[in-house]
């Protein structure tokens, strides 16, 4: 049966008498099948049960358009059942009901005395509940007062949440009348609606009927509707019996309750009420509310809006985490951590562990150790900072930004630092050392495979993050954003972050300002091309490695020559060793001088030495071409 489009939450007036029912109904609409299943709404006739129930259907379908909902009155249910039994189509009848996600069953009090229908209902109820489908029932009385109702049905009906919708209080009645007038485009002089609201109507339907009558009177021009004649127009005798009359039994109590509600509302702190309402709501949904409970103990009124918004956002995060966890392990999703907004951090960690546990983050190259990293004035500041980061990770230089041109040992130092940190942690720490390019490539595959959460978790879980060639992130959008969030998450957790690049943060074009400022927030230190002292150490080491006996004069001669980087220095040693071997002479300073300065059989490697500075005293100015002619446009023949 189609849902009546008029019945929506938007036009349902909420007052003290129906607030709980409306809150519960909204909760059900937002998450059908999870909270309050079944939801049993009862009230006397004409107080808005059906309206509320159908409003749930509308809202639920608005939030989840694929949801299959079915509204049916008990009478129709019975009719269809009878028809199905006589036509022998009982199976398809059952299937039809079992296929719905949200069953709205109106007027279940008519189950009274219908044994057959009751047992069919019981089966249907069980099937739907097992499948986690939402059921909403309405009745004019609570389950235990429905005559001859099967005990099992009573317990099932009452197993979720049973709420009643009471008589609206005076203010709510006025609000209802005003809303109806607006809906109908009618207007009355001041006091008319208030007078109608004061009249003794036992439900909203009668109230609406009275209003309809007044609207008719007004449009037909039969009589002018005023506050004074409104009672007469509605057929009330001037001397209506006071409420104490026997017929009004119960009415007096109801009006006492209504008035009491107003008094309570006036005299208890409204912010506490809001907090308590939120507590009730979330508690019934199974969430821990001690955080809210604690605020009740304070004397001063807190910023309730902010408090509740924060609480709700924590719950939203918990829900997302719970879903994420459930995708990998339904048992994990049962964890009580997902029910406590004060433990979002722990829940995050739990999910992160689960997601990231499968694949450890990239680690440092074990060959690039601190022992093999030679120190000299050109890099000692960087080395000192790195050593400090090992001793006091995350405390002194965080983040540490190392930069220097290619081949001066930035990558080596970064990996050495990662290896040292790993060793310092006894292997228990997760030290991630990743090249920015790998970071970006992994991110792209994670996006492709839809495993972004898992990918992210791997990084957020680490105890230290070291990113090499971070300049490669420049001009990326998502990678910078992810790096930004990972950075923040680790930084706030006091984890050490080390970044390496070929230039200073300021010089990286296309690096987002938010990252740049963060990179510069710790220590930025440069590694310069190897200085003389460092060259000495390196030449001695490479020559020894090549099987040459340490020749002090040779080492002195070589280290006096400037090099741009270590690979160049290594290449020089290689070249000399090979040349000496070919010629069959021992490698010494004289040979090296001849080989390197006099020109030899081996082609000299292209050098990027900036000869204008530093150790260039030995270079023959005449042999250096400073300005090469422009070769573009010339043929190869010309160049020969």
């Amino acid at each position, binding site marked *: 049966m189609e849902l009546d489009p008029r019945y929506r939450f938007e036009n349902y007036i909420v007052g003290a008498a129906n607030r709980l029912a409306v809150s519960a109904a909204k909760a059900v609409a937002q998450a059908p099948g999870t909270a309050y299943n079944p939801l049993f709404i009862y009230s006397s006739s004409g107080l808005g049960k059906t309206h509320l129930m159908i409003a749930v259907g509308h809202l639920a379908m608005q939030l989840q358009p694929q949801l299959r909902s079915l509204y049916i009155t008990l009478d129709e249910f019975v009719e269809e059942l009878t028809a199905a039994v006589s036509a022998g189509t009982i199976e398809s009848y059952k299937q039809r009901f079992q296929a719905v996600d949200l069953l709205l069953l109106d007027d279940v009090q008519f189950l009274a005395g219908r044994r057959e229908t009751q047992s069919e209902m019981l089966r249907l109820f069980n099937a739907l509940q097992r499948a986690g489908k939402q059921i909403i029932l309405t009745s004019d009385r609570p389950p235990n007062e429905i005559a001859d109702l099967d005990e099992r049905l009573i317990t099932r009906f009452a197993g979720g949440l049973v709420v009643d919708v009471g008589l609206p209080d005076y203010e709510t009645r006025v609000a209802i009348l005003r809303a109806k007038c607006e809906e109908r485009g009618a207007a009355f002089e001041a006091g008319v609606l208030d007078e109608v609201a004061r009249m003794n109507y036992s439900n909203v339907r009668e109230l609406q009927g009275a209003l309809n009558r007044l609207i008719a009177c007004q449009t037909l021009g039969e009589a002018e509707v005023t506050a004074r004649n409104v009672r007469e127009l509605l057929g009330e005798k001037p001397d209506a019996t006071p409420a104490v009359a026997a017929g009004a039994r*119960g009415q007096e109590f109801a009006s*006492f309750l209504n008035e009491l509600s107003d008094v309570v509302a006036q005299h208890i702190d409204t912010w506490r009420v809001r907090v308590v309402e939120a507590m009730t709501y979330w508690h019934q949904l199974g969430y821990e509310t001690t955080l809210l409970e604690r605020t009740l103990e304070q004397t001063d009124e807190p910023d309730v809006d902010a408090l509740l918004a924060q609480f709700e956002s924590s719950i939203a995060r918990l829900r997302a985490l719970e879903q994420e966890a459930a995708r990998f392990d339904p048992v994990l999703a049962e964890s009580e951590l997902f029910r406590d907004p004060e433990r979002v951090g722990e829940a995050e960690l739990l999910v992160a562990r689960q997601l990231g546990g499968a694949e450890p983050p990239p680690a440092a190259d074990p060959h690039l150790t601190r022992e093999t990293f030679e120190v000299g004035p050109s890099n000692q500041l960087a080395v000192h900072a790195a050593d400090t980061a090992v001793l006091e990770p995350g405390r002194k230089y965080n983040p540490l930004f190392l930069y220097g041109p290619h081949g001066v040992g930035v990558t080596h130092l970064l990996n050495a630092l990662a290896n040292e940190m790993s060793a310092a942690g006894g292997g228990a720490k997760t030290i991630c050392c990743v090249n920015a390019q790998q970071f970006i490539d992994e991110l792209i595959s994670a996006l492709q495979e839809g495993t972004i959460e898992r990918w992210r978790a791997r990084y957020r879980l680490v105890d230290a993050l070291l990113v090499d060639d971070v300049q490669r992130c420049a001009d990326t959008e998502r990678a910078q954003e992810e790096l930004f969030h990972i950075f923040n998450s680790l930084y706030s957790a006091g984890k050490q972050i080390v970044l390496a690049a070929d230039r200073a943060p300021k010089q990286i074009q296309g690096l987002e300002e938010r990252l740049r400022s963060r990179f510069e927030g710790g220590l930025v230190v440069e590694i310069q091309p190897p200085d003389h002292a460092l060259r000495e150490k390196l030449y001695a080491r490479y020559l020894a490695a090549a099987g040459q006996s340490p020749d002090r004069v040779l080492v002195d001669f070589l280290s006096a020559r400037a090099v741009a980087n270590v690979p160049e220095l290594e290449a020089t040693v290689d070249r000399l060793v090979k040349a000496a071997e070919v010629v069959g002479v021992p490698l010494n300073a004289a040979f090296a001088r001849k080989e390197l300065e006099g020109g030899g059989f081996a082609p000299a490697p292209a050098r990027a030495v900036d000869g204008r500075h530093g150790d260039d005293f030995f270079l023959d100015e005449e042999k250096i071409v400073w300005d090469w002619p422009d070769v573009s446009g010339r043929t190869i023949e010309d160049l020969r």
Partner: protein
Amino acid sequence: MSLVNYATREITCKIVYYGPGRSGKTTNLHYIYEQVPRDRKGRMVSLATQTDRTLFFDFLPLDLGMISGFTTRFQLYTVPGQVYYHTTRKLVLQGADGVVFVADSQARQLQENIESMQDLHANLAEHGVDTRGMPLVIQYNKQDLPADLILGVPALEDALNFRGVPSFAGDALHGTGVFETLRGISELVLRRLSAATPAGSR
């Protein structure tokens, strides 16, 4: 006793109907009991003598359901009016959040009314309760009796209402003024909340 417990979301309110013997305290409770829908009332406990006089006390628990998100329960008690039940009266009065003084409007009962009112104040003082802070309303019951038998409300006000508390003319047998009185005391009791110490357990 705990009045509003924000933490457990409960309002529990103990109201004691006080007054001289036969002034109509139990009648008040009976009338309320009759009006309460079945699902809302607990069993009314009445320990009465054979002649229907309250021997110990009446106790009527009222479950008012959820009010502004609070499970609200009212506990209505009566004390035995007869002079010799002093100890019981004192016991029942303990922990009361509010008192309804039911006065007998009959002219010949004036002295009993005054004595009972004094007794109330003495008992409250013995419990260490500041009587000026205790929510109190007065109901002048039996105003339906012939005018020559009773005192009018102004005369009773003069004699009994020296504190100027809210008062109501009543006919508890037929219900007149019963709920007005209950409403009046409820309002006073709940009003005290806003001035009360704010804490989760209060």
